[in-house]
């Protein structure tokens, strides 16, 4: 009897294969941790560098400031370099994404899927992480990414949630629980974009009372237009409270004049 039970237990373990490495509660915890570590309860301001490479074209580079107020779902980008681009900006309020160009003094309504500044960056790449809210997670395997042991997790968009990519595959570092690689897939399963996050930084947030993590370097590779890639570097973080009226058209206009 004992033998039979032991055999059954062994068979079950083998059938489950590597998926047994993360139980559903553990998986949920990993995904929640990814969100939690990047969340900041207060305001967020980051000085970034963005560089887009396209096959056969000149590099497009920007220096920009990214602002976030997560509790109100607001976000803003203000371009500061190169000189011809300085003062241009994006403002996101709810589901509206506005583009402002000081050269013409006009606001233009853009879609949520806008390629920021014509690069392969989407607004969501510089937003807070909302994986728990937006996706259902499924553990796929434990494996190696370079020299690092990682959990491979498949995320499928929850019904009724509007996201840029209906499926996302993550490679999460087992030791630090930072995302090292991310694949974004279409509904058909076609790979659209691959992102790598080789350097993570943490900074103490007084409003959160804990560390906030952010990827210092993001490398985005377009899988449809092979040869196109974008690099984002977060150079500085400023966690002081932002002006109350910062996420308004009037504020961005005033900075650009």
């Amino acid at each position: 009897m004992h033998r039979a039970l032991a055999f059954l237990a062994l068979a079950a373990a083998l059938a489950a294969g590597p998926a047994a490495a993360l139980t559903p509660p553990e998986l949920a915890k990993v995904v929640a941790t990814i969100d939690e570590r990047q969340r900041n309860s207060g305001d967020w301001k980051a000085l970034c560098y963005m560089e887009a490479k396209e096959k056969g074209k000149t590099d497009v580079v920007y220096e920009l400031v990214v602002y976030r107020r997560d509790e109100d779902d607001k976000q803003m980008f203000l371009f500061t370099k190169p000189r011809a681009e300085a003062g241009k900006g994006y403002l996101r309020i709810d589901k509206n994404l506005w583009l402002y160009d000081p050269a013409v003094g006009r606001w233009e309504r853009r879609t949520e899927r806008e390629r920021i500044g014509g690069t392969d960056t989407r607004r969501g790449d510089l937003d807070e992480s909302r994986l728990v809210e937006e996706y259902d997670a499924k553990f796929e395997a434990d494996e190696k990414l370079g020299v690092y042991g990682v959990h491979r997790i498949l995320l499928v968009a929850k019904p009724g949630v509007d996201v840029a990519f209906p499926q996302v595959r993550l490679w999460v570092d087992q030791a630090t629980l930072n995302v090292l690689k991310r694949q974004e897939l279409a509904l058909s399963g076609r790979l659209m974009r691959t992102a790598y996050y080789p350097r993570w930084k943490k900074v103490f947030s007084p409003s959160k009372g804990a560390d906030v993590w952010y990827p210092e370097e993001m490398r985005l590779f377009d899988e449809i237009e092979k040869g196109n890639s974008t690099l984002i570097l977060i150079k500085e973080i400023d966690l002081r409270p932002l002006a109350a009226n910062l996420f308004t058209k009037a504020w961005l206009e005033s900075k650009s004049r």
Partner: protein
Amino acid sequence: MAPRRDAARVLLRIAFRNLLASPVRTGILGAIVLVGALIVVVGSSVLDSIDRGMRTSIQGSLGGHLQVYEARSEGALELYGGLRGESLLEPIEDFSKVKAVLEQVPNVKQVVPMGIDQAMVATGNAFDLALERLRGDVRRLEAGEDGPELRRDYAAHAAHVRRMVQLLRDEIAQAREISDPEGREAAERKSEWEALQRAATDAFWRDLDRDRYGSLEFLENRVAPLAMDTAFTFLRYVGTDVDAFFRAFPLAEVVKGERIPTGQRGVLVGKQYAEEWLKLKNARRLDQIKDARDRRGKRIADDEELQRWVRENRAGIREILLQLDPIRADALAQELRPALGAPAAEPLEALLGRLFAATDESFDGQYRIFYDVVAPKLRLYQIDVGDTITIKAPSKSGYFSSVNVKVYGFLQFKGIERSGIAGMMSVLDLMSFRDLYGYLTAEKAAEIRALQKSMGAREIDRERAEAELFGAADGALVGEARVAEIDEGALVKRREEERASAADLAAHVYSQEELEHGVALNAALILDDPRLLRRTEGDVRKAIADAGLGLKVVDWQEAAGLVGQFVTLLRVVLFTAVVIFFAIALVIINNAMVMATLQRVKEIGTMRAIGTQRRFVVTMLLVEIATVGLVFGLAGAALGAGVVWGIRVAGGIPAVTDLLYFVFSGPALFPRLGALAVGGSLAVVLLVAILSALYPALIAMRVTPVEAMATED
């Protein structure tokens, strides 16, 4: 001399006798020759006229006589666009150098710089536009400006937006009745409805002055997106030295507004483009119905398309209502009631419904009422003369460029006004074109390189990315950062002259030197004597090679791309048809003549027996067929001339498509009979007839008196 004349007379008499002796055979041969001549005459007349029409359209609108562009270009120049969109041309970095060289070439009258491209024009949805006007007032009020006029504008714009909110609420209320309250997006719909309800309350508008910016943000972000209208359109333009362009292209004319003042920035929007893409849809459909009735004799009662337009007009009233503020809406209703004979209390929506419910009997009257009463209160074109529009395009340097330009007028090309090929084209000043094109100057490139260097970004090969990034446990995966103080005010320092230039660009007058020293994509060459085109083309090539300009030269037809190949294609089709026809004719005539010759073996033998030479026999047969060719060829040519005349009298061949409008250089093609067409057709039919009679003549020549006598019949 006399014996020869006698021989000719005898030959002709014999020929006519033979032809009349076999009327059926002669009729068949004659009919073939006649149809052949007819095809050649009509076909070549039509083709020559098309060739002329297209030459007029292309040379007079964009092409000039010759075009030059950078020889290193990836694609070929296609003035009217190709299958893959706009031509991929490398820039001519300094147009002035090209002009200096080419103007010295004999017979070159003018060199016009050009850059053809497409750009996006953000028109905003109706809500966004109304809110933008209101924001303009708010900006001035918040900046401390005040006055009765500003207050009046502010009140009118606010009333307009409030009316739009009410209309939108009515519309969404209807949609809510059929939507699923438990559906996937129910919560979102509920929140949208609440926002709309709030914007429709008296309290919201009463409090507008308390927090003007806050209220605007609410309307822009929570209410306007619900309108879901189109927010942009594409504009195809040629950036050029506008004065030079009008000198070079005599078909170009401004039909509304004025030309862009010399040296200033501005755009002339293609009239046909404005009609098709920018006009209020109801007005456009009314124009189309009128055109179909007046020009094509269609009737609403019988034509499904016209009935559909009438239906769409009745459903499109919202677009008109959204444009009217309460005061103008009341005024319009008051004017419409007596004009339409409607009851005194009938609301505007019902009045407009009545106006657009057109029948064949009422259409002309309703059309007049629309343009006399309704149109003056509306914005008929999304972009109109006097507006300043924002044009945006991805630039050569990779960044998006935007420019503000004033619309000085609507442009059309005489004779081809309604052509979708030329009529879609707008004319933009050269400086704005260069801003949009965004040529990467050495200064810009250096700035980008410096920024890249300061950031220390290293390039990584996609294939080796994982190995390079995660191949070594070097401790770089995590680290600690310190908070910084980012001062965007200091980062967004723009140079004083740049600030000033943004505001003054519209008023700045550029010198001819400024216009000419800079980028162009191609240049049109206008010749003094177009008949010397080929010689001048050679001279231009030589001048380019001597000066080392590295440009490619093409004639107007090649520069027109696919459109330019149209006549060549038609010629090939006609030529093929004619060749096939005459090949068949050759066989039929040959057979008929062989039969006729065999029937006349005895007669030929007798003639040979009494001393007739072989040459005479051959000539006799050839004269016979040549007579058929000449007589029926002339008749066919005359008939062809009659057909050509008939087509002209009947109003020409109508241009039923955009392409035909362009190649006909007008609404119809009026073919012209040319001496070459008549002469050519006669030559062709005679040649074919004689060729087909050669073999029977050979048979006849071999007939000997003995063989003839031996024949039973």
